[in-house]
């Protein structure tokens, strides 16, 4: 039986397993569709969220299934805010190398956070309640 996302206020929580990525993607798409967002915006936000959730699973919680990833989603007319929080050791976003520079361009890995930032309007990193990384991403509807 497939494991399910657990509902929390304004969002979901789930163990640190990549198996949940597809379910998270569907959840974000459904919620944004219900909120009236267009197809293009939904696609961009869903990919951005997927990158941060994957980062939380792999690098934050290091795939320790006893640790949860929490995803909260808030929307108002014309804008959406999504928070992704892990229970890891914290993260220093400034130390991530640019995937566009020199030999990084054709490296297989290292683009996730860059892509996630490019697809939304703003991204803020902070420490979560349990000391992990909390990422807050914000997207406005195009005028």
């Amino acid at each position: 039986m497939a494991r399910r996302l657990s509902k929390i206020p304004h969002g979901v929580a789930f163990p640190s397993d990549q198996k949940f990525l597809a379910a998270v993607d569907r959840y974000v798409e459904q919620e944004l569709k219900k909120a009236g967002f267009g197809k293009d915006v939904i696609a961009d936000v869903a990919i951005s969220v997927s990158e941060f959730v994957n980062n939380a699973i792999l690098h934050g919680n290091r795939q320790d299934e006893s640790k949860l990833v929490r995803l909260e989603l808030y929307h108002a007319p014309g804008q959406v805010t999504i928070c992704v929080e892990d229970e890891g050791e914290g993260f220093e976003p400034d130390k991530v190398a640019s995937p566009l520079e020199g030999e990084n361009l054709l490296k297989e890995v290292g683009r996730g956070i860059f892509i996630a930032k490019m697809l939304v309007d703003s991204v803020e990193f902070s420490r979560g309640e349990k000391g992990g990384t909390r990422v807050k991403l914000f997207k406005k509807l195009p005028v």
Partner: protein
Amino acid sequence: MKFKTDEKDGVVIVTPKGKILDGSDTNKMRDKIEELVRIGARRMVIDLGGVPHMDSSGIRILVAALNGLRKEGGELRLARITTKVEDLIAITQLTGQFKTHPSVEEAVRGFSSPN
């Protein structure tokens, strides 16, 4: 995401279907491409017509295929690339690295023409 592989006129055609997100299916596709190159594939087309969007794991597959084929003197071409995937390739400044074609047939024919 699911994928299949075919061969036409000496060209391997890899056809993923569905949004590409990181996980076991993505790893399977990457491993399959790596295996195909290892056993001799040198001309490959990835048909992206059934991929509405992808995350960085999709870019990772494309770059791994590109690097793997180049290393062996081979070549990768992309066919039927969708708008969102094209945007992602542009964002990551990889547009100039990939030869793209509007159809699989044209991509396959491209191997026998100078460009």
